[in-house]
């Protein structure tokens, strides 16, 4: 079990606070379009945070978080479309439904690990959009379903980042406490955790539920930034793969890189479209694919790993510098 050194933690809180301040001030200097992109980054931020809780902290791989996003997204769209529910009120509902679905998936997932779990969750990601097609009376089918109101980009930015901040705070509190210690114990050695009294099934399933709940809220915002329009094509397998890429870029088992991971998958397709030579539409994929591979080769522990590296370098530099000591 690892306990973080508190001076490092203090420094990190400072970094997070600074990032939060920048995020809070950013929309004032940006065009409406870029504010919309910023809200999109918040969507990925929340989803990656959730995926990280599962994969990074309890070691259960999921390639199916797009499915939970679909569940959350459709909750918001259907509640608003059919019942005129206030959009903000649909968020806790999306969390609750996705959380319940997460628990349901988490129970059979107890029997699988590693590659098998990856494939089972993959199957989930592929199947959920199919269900939306099948039950089209309920979900609008291929022509989609729309919320009654489509909020503005600045509303979306404020709401999604507030929610993201709340989600981050909750995750941080959760993971540094008793539950977080249990999660990490499960990840590091299931046998050791079980023998020291951690109830494996409960904690593994709980992690699935929380993680899915996060993805559900992210899905709600995902639909809202898509003009309140939910449609099966939006939740294709590529969405789940993007989340996994984002989580890996951020660095698994650490919360400090999540913002970078979210910015990476949220903005890179945008940026790579303007790369010269291959910058036309299909070049986008070439650049995106290349960068994903390059990052994994160069930063196997993601941005969080890079942060740790820099931190320890700085620490050794300070310690070896006679003037400061």
């Amino acid at each position, binding site marked *: 079990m690892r306990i973080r050194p508190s001076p490092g933690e203090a420094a990190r809180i400072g970094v997070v606070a600074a990032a939060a301040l920048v995020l809070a001030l950013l929309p004032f200097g940006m065009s409406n379009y870029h504010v919309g992109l910023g809200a999109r980054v918040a969507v990925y931020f929340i989803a990656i945070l959730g995926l990280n809780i599962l994969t990074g902290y309890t070691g259960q791989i999921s390639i199916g978080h797009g499915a939970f996003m679909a569940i959350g997204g459709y909750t918001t769209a259907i509640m608003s479309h059919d019942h005129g529910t206030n959009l903000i009120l649909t968020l806790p509902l999306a969390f609750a439904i996705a959380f319940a679905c997460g628990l349901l998936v988490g129970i059979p997932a107890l029997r699988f690990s590693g590659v098998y779990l990856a494939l089972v969750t993959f199957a989930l990601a592929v199947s959920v959009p199919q269900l939306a*097609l099948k039950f089209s009376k309920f979900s609008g089918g*291929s022509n989609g379903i729309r919320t009654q109101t489509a909020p503005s980009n600045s509303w979306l930015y404020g*709401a999604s980042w507030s929610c993201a*901040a709340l989600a981050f705070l909750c995750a941080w509190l959760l993971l540094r406490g008793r539950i977080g210690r249990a999660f990490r114990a499960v990840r590091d050695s299931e046998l050791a955790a079980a023998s020291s009294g951690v109830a494996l099934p409960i904690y593994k399933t709980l992690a699935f539920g929380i993680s899915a709940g996060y993805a559900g809220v992210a899905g709600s915002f995902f639909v809202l930034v898509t003009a309140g*329009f939910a449609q099966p094509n939006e939740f294709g397998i590529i969405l789940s793969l993007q989340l996994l890429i984002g989580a890996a870029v951020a660095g698994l088992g650490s919360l400090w890189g999540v913002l970078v991971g979210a910015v990476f998958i949220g903005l890179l397709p945008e940026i790579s479209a303007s790369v010269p030579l291959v910058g036309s539409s299909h070049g*986008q994929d070439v650049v995106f694919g290349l960068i994903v591979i390059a990052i994994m080769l160069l930063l196997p522990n993601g941005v969080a790993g890079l942060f740790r590296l820099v931190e320890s370098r700085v620490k050794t530099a300070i310690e070896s510098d006679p003037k400061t000591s």
Partner: protein
Amino acid sequence: MIPDYLIHGGSMTMKRRLLAVLAGTAVVAAAAVSAASGAPKADPGITASTIKIGGTFPLTGVASSYRTIPTAEKAYYDYVNDHGGINGRKIDFTILDDAYDPSKTVPLAQQLVEQAKVFAVVGSLGTAPGLATWGYLNKNKVPQVLLATGDSYWGFSFKKYPWTTGWQPDYPGESKVYGRYLASNFPTAKIGVLYQNDAYGKNYFAGLRVGLGAKKENIVDAESYDATNPSVTQQILALKSKGADVFVVFALPPQTITALVTAAKVGWNPKATLINNVSANRVYLLAAAAAGANVDGIISTTYLASATTQKNLPGVKLAGQIVDQYAPALKTSFDRGDSNIMYGFGAAWTFVNAMQSAGKNPTRVGLMKALHSLNTTKDPFVYPGIKLQTSAKDNFPIEQEIMIKWAGGATGDWQSFGKLIGPVR
């Protein structure tokens, strides 16, 4: 250090007030700026020398077989630009890839409107992408015109969405034509239908039943397929086993080809086969024939001029010249009769025509007015005689079609028969 409104995500009043204040400031500032500039400003995207437009298309992904459409449109605009443009203005056409995914279409539409500041969104492809963006575009009074999809939303909802128009005949209207044809020519047939399991396929299927009228009892089986199905063999076998002897396919091009090939492969020889015009591209039929399908006698409809059987039409000659000069990459498929190219030319012609009608100083309102009062048979790329017509009551630009039948096997072509049918709706 973190502002209150960020932490208390639940209580939005604080944030809302802040944003309201902000919005208020912005409005005042904007008013001041526009007051300072004085003279009436042209609509966004219009300068003395250019008209900026854009559209979203599936250049990648499942629907990427349509990518020749925007390429052809761009070629036509380039041709117009080299011949004086529209009242001296050159068309600057931006093509963006949404991979047929509405969650990509929405930010791309915002990018076109707010970053690229286009005058209009022209020719964007797909029903779901269109539905995902029409709220935003109409709210911002940005024309969303000549949508490349045959759904009837654009035609029927133009009171509520006055900035949106389609172009091609709508799908159920087309399948009513098939229904009526079957009812009178094959009154005792046992009809088997293969359709895509989404609104596209279901609307086609519904239209067929309407067209068949009392004869809809002749439908012995209807099987759907999903885009994730690896083949349609199971469905074809089911249709065959129910004794169907007329085969109707409402599918996307790849599945239509597969369906035709599979029918031959399982030894099913229906006495008539009908396919929708989206799939009735000569290129696809040639491929199906080469893979073993029995293509002779297949029936469909078209509303476009044929690059292969109508070579002497001025429009086809012009299309050939434009392809040679502005889109040589399309040459091979054009010569093989890829109707998507003619589609792109025809839609682009309509836009240019409407812009000319909109006058020397075109506005968005003027463009919509022009598109709501089309009345011309001059589009050189549509089937000769077809009239593009809209009015205050009718927002379906093309409502006529001609039936076609394939002859000549693996090197054959479509032959039209009968008279122009219309209005199809």
